[in-house]
């Protein structure tokens, strides 16, 4: 059947902006969009540039916006992508386009990947044979490493929209891969680094990364796991840890957040300078009717005991 493909073309040497070029291809519905693009290149237009190697969903190189949905082109059939007799093929938004469907991967993708130093560094001399590792740990790592680096999670990330220097869920998931690996010895150093600005604490837990992942790796949960680990081993800035602990303690105790207590405990009780810095903010809040009363006056919300139960259950299980 004849299918109309509208494919993004852009040549930095001649074009100010990209535009869609129309190709008509006689193709079967069961073919994938990547198959179709390859045939267009081979039979109609040898200059059409796009990435895509393995044809089977392992190389992660054919991430595209196909008929307005972010997809992996080799796992998207023509039948599945057809909208009103045509298929549009456009770049995803996040990464700059160097030509047609070729992204500038270095700036947004590979540099972040390298930034987490994603190789394990054994602390002790290597054993003569393999390391003894429980299969459950291996299974968890395998899930994480099934990541093909398609960067759809970064594309969905809402923090990335406002801060392109955010490490992003893909690189953070790669960081999880080394930190969760029992053979690695640099946990503390890695967690300290991830705790810096534009690192794991900049995730705003919108869960879009997990929604976007075609391999169900759940990057958002991986970021949470990294944060929990950092809290557990006292990595990163004490302020962040104070904030995290105070937040949890406050909700556990009263069923909701005591903002005044959070502000004070985040700075640290003995940190007089820090506490003084909070004063103008507190006064302003008072002025505007937000009234952060001293936390002794904070009231429990109705049903707080049930919330406390949830906390205790979770603490027991983890």
């Amino acid at each position, binding site marked *: 059947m004849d299918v109309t493909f509208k494919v993004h073309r852009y040549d930095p040497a001649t074009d100010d902006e990209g535009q869609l070029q129309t190709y008509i291809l*006689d193709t079967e519905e069961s073919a994938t969009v990547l198959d179709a693009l390859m045939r267009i290149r081979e039979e109609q237009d040898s200059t059409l540039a796009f990435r895509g*190697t393995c044809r089977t*969903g392992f190389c992660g190189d054919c991430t595209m916006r196909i008929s307005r949905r972010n997809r992996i082109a080799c796992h998207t059939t023509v039948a599945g992508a057809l909208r009103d007799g045509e298929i549009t093929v456009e770049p995803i938004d996040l990464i700059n386009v160097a030509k047609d469907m070729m992204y500038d991967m270095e700036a947004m993708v590979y540099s972040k990947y390298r930034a987490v130093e994603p190789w394990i*560094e054994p602390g002790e001399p290597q054993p003569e044979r393999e390391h003894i590792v429980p299969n459950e740990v291996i299974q968890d790592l395998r899930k994480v*490493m099934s990541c093909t680096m398609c960067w759809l999670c970064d594309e969905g990330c809402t923090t990335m929209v406002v801060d392109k220097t955010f490490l992003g869920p893909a690189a953070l998931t790669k960081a999880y891969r080394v930190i969760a690996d029992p053979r690695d010895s640099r946990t503390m150093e890695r967690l300290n680094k991830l705790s810096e600005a534009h690192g794991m604490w900049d995730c705003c837990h919108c869960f879009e990364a997990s929604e976007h992942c075609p391999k169900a790796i759940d990057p958002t949960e991986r970021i949470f796991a990294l944060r929990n680990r950092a809290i557990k081993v006292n990595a990163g800035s004490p302020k962040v840890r104070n904030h995290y602990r105070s937040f949890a303690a406050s909700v556990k105790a009263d069923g909701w957040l005591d903002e005044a207590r959070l502000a004070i405990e985040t700075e640290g009780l003995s940190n007089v300078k820090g506490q003084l810095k909070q004063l103008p903010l507190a006064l302003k809040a008072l002025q505007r009717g937000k009234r952060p009363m001293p936390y002794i006056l904070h009231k429990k919300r109705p049903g707080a005991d049930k919330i406390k139960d949830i906390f205790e259950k979770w603490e027991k299980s983890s």
Partner: protein
Amino acid sequence: MPEHDVVVVGGGFAGMRAAIAAKSAGAEVALVSKVHPLRSHSSGAHSGINAALGAEDSWQSHAHDTIVAGDYLSDQDAVEILCQEGIQDVIRLEHMGVIFSRDGQGRIDLMPFAASSRPRTCYVGDSAGHIILQVLYEQLLRLQVQTYDEWFVTSLLIADGVCQGAIAQELSTGRLQPLYARAVVLATGGLGRMYQPSTSAYTSTADGVALAYRAGAPLVDMEMVQYHPTTLKGRGTVITEAARGEGAYLVNKDGDRFMASYAPERMEMAPRDVCCRAIETEIAAGRGMESVRGGQGRERVERHDDCVFLDFRHLDPQRMDDRLPETQLLAKNLAGIDIKKDLVPVQPAMHRPIGGIQINVDGATDIPGLYAVGECACVGVHGANRLGGNSLLDSIVFGRRAGDAAATYTRATPSQRASQSLLEDQERRVQELAARSGGKDTVGSLRLELALTMHQKVGIYRSRVGLREAIEKVNELKGRYARVAISSAGGAYNPSLSAFLELGNMLDVAQVIVASALARQESRGAHYRTDFPQRDDASWLKHTIASYTPDRPSLAYKPVVITQWQPSDPS
């Protein structure tokens, strides 16, 4: 101008392993690849890597299985190295960070694989390739190996008979650039794009094989082309051998486990060549499911769409989630099939060349300074039929050895710089190409004709008549190729030139495959001649050596190295 001790061409297992070894040995190394290393096709090697790690196992047993599966065409000195050193190399992979699946004690678990006498395959669920590729790349970063990502090598720099680097097109700019080096290691992988159906990536286009061949390095045993018995109907996507290792059945349209008629003892665990012929025979006898697509459609050829089935339905669903998660995902996404409930339509597809650039056990070719390793090379371990799980081992063991040897070679070799005129010749050639006025043939139409010819006539079953037709067809395609025009060659990310050169590489190597297959008048391993159905040790226990001449390959032969396993009677 970039200048390095060692330039590795190709970023899959073999290339990265060679680069890691050469760098660790103190050489200054660069790795050039036409795709980013993480996108290399090694990630498609789902199954695993063999090593005699089991308490009951021995490297001798592994070697024996390898040689028997290879139908005694293996060079046994190389097999001994593979199976002995492979054990430590697999442990090294684990130390680098590979997360091999574990047994109850937390040790590397071993899976039974077809034609192996013991469970011997280290695996990572059903995605060993994808995981090992990532770990090797992690190590590449750790060692700070310089990479030239998305550079396409167009030719080798050979001066005074010595390899002194390569010329490559930097795809992001379109410029041709020389990469000077004291040693070059070719690790460019396979050639599956010259077959259809094939399990290969778009990028498997015989590049390294053709570069070495045209530069004067001989190719060996190119007629040995392995098919994978179980690939998704119509797509060539591999359903891993681990599926049969886990107990999946091969059944025909009547639901019979037909392997009982072909290999009653081993059944589905018979060697790949045996399974492929069994499936083709079932289909030819009308016991396969016939094409539902009918007689039209561009890629429809005789039997192309006919298939048998893999049956997983009797397997434990929970265990399948652990062992075959990726297989389930791709069957669902590519064919809409839930393998726990439905039969999976499968057919054999071209999988891996067993022959390649002739190398010694240190990866050295016949050209000083030129090394080769992995799927583009042939050290002789796979004989006439490769054992599943041995390919990764080959690339890891001989990748390491080639990297070491190249580093050693560079220490004794002064820096040389091939003359500028070689680069100017290339640039002139590209300008001529771009100025050519072409006919109606395109790179795509010629490639498809080639791929269908190779599958039909140089596939699982071969005959003198078919092979002669194939030779004529390939020669005709070469003639037409010489008149194909490319609209433009330069500019940022213009794939025109690389696609054109890839086709040229495939045509040159196809000529060698067909000529070698026509000459070998016997059936051995993956090479099955309907007109010579028996193995013939008296005349053909020898390797085919093909050397470049402008018109056609010139063929010669060399003996097989036999150390301790004498050929037994063909079964």
